[in-house]
């Protein structure tokens, strides 16, 4: 960036941040999300009990002084479990979002810039996958792969890139007709250089929005998969989703077991969505629903 030579023009990143910070709800969401993330990262320090510690004498205990959010059927403290589970849930959400966004960006960029047969094949694939009943495909994929964190991340990423690819392709189609691309090609830049050095920096806004929205989607998808018993195995790793799925049967006698992880999911996803909306305004990505 040559900001020093053109002091009048604000750096795009600074401009974007200013516009983002102008939106109070986005800033509040960012703070809340940072708090949640920090709490789960510091679970060892914050959690009242170690991960997975059972209390045989306090099974399904009510919320109270000893257990702020009660205990589950094995007498595990819900609050401690939630802190450790949140770490996994957030990690899965962010990893899926990053993988899906980079995959989608690559495919959208190649399709949009190359055009012709490559574009037709890639977009037909994208549209077909997009038109499928997503959860069914994800469930079948999860059943074929397995129930480790890695498997769940893989299957959600493999089936989460399509929307990003469409958006990126649309943007690339308009970018590639502009003068700076023609200039780069006239100077002898090959397709790889044009895409990664000239197109990619112009796609940062779209990618930032995509990452945030994909994170929200991935957290929801993981929770649904786990609830149905096709997600990360509760035996090894607690997630907010499998805490819900595993405790559903005790909902009427121990509602806190189902209410607390659910609220954690809702608050997190809500924050991520508000941040995504703020980013959309900040980077002036084609809006939907907002003006």
């Amino acid at each position, binding site marked *: 960036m040559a900001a020093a030579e053109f002091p009048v023009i604000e750096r795009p990143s600074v401009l974007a941040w200013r516009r983002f910070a102008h939106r109070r709800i986005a800033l509040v969401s960012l703070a809340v999300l940072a708090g949640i993330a920090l709490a789960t990262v510091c679970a060892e320090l914050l959690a009242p009990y170690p991960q997975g510690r059972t209390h045989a004498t306090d099974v399904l205990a009510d919320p109270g002084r000893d257990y702020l959010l009660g205990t589950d059927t094995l007498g595990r403290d819900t609050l401690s479990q939630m802190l450790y589970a949140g770490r996994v849930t957030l990690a899965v959400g962010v990893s899926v979002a990053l993988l899906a966004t980079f995959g989608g960006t690559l495919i959208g960029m190649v399709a949009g810039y190359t055009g012709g047969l490559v574009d037709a094949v890639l977009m037909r694939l994208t549209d077909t996958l997009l038109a499928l009943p997503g*959860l*069914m495909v994800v469930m079948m994929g999860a059943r074929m792969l397995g129930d480790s964190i890695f498997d769940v991340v893989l299957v959600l990423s493999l089936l989460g890139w399509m929307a990003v690819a469409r958006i990126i392709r649309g943007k690339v189609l308009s970018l590639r007709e502009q003068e700076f691309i023609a200039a780069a090609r006239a100077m002898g830049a090959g397709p790889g250089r044009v895409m990664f050095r000239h197109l990619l920096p112009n796609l940062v806004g779209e990618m930032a929005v995509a990452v945030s929205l994909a994170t929200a989607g991935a957290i929801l998808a993981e929770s649904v998969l786990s*609830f*149905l018993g096709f997600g990360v195995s509760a035996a090894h790793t607690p997630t907010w989703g499998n805490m819900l799925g595993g405790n559903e049967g005790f909902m009427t006698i121990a509602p806190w077991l*189902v209410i607390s992880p659910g609220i954690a999911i*809702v608050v997190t996803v809500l924050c991520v969505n508000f941040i995504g909306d703020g980013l959309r305004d900040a980077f002036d990505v084609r809006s939907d629903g907002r*003006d």
Partner: protein
Amino acid sequence: MTRYVLRRIATMVPILLAISIAVFWAANRIARPGGDLAINPRVSPADRADYFESLGLNDPFFVRYLSWLGDFVRGDLGTSLVRNGSDVWPFVRTALANTLVLVSLAVVLSLAAGITIGAISAIRRGSFTDYVATTVSFLGISIPVFWLGLMLQLFFGLYLANWLGITPPLLPTAGLYSPGQQGFDLVDRLRHLVLPAMTLSLQLVAVYSRYMRASLLDVMSSDHIRAARGRGLRERTVVVRHGVRNALIPVTTQAAVDMGQLVGGLIVTEQVFQYPGMGRLFVNAMVGGDYPMLLATTMIVAAAVMLLNLAADLFYGVLDPRIRRGSR
């Protein structure tokens, strides 16, 4: 128009075939085509080999695929491996009917609610109503569908019932009919639909209202609205006849694109409320390894989603004459 419809249907066929190959391959990896007999240690290897041979399981992949496809297209969905070897089709037919009732109720309600809320938000842009609607729609897309269902069950089934001191609760939280119900009772059936339909609808209302708001704002700033106002039409006529009608076009396409996602909501809703539809049939087939049932439910849902996409595209043509003419 007819040619357009035929062409669209023609492009659907290869996609459906590709999907069917993928589904057949996946189902063969997820479930055992030979059922539990394949791993039962009390079955002698010779008997097992005979059984596999009789099912045609020793044939190459594509031979088995083609034979399954042939049966499927002719309407023979096979026999269930779990439900005492009974035909798959009656189960699918009942479940499909139940699902269609639930889905159409939810979609009609959410389109009506979403379009109304979105239109009001757009007309009173920046007002308190708009603010509330926007916030609630953000909440709507952030709540996991199954959790909303659980909370509704908890509230209506437990807290509200306890508070009012009534048993059974005002709204039933599971199944299709009350226990001991004889024959068809419309009121009872509808009461069982309320909570699942609400669960399935919230997210849709949120999504549709946001699309409607954006779409109407877009339309209201266009020239033909100014022209309509300039002709001295009443504001009400301008908004409804010239604004809303045009704003509906992107909303319907988006509604169609969301059909695939709707299936996800449907699966969890049916699971939470033990509603005997296609989603529950699919989950049970996955869990129980019921191979023919898995193939049947997956293929029928995939085909239904694609058909609904097509139907929405055609409806798009009805709303926007330019597309109809362009297709000739």
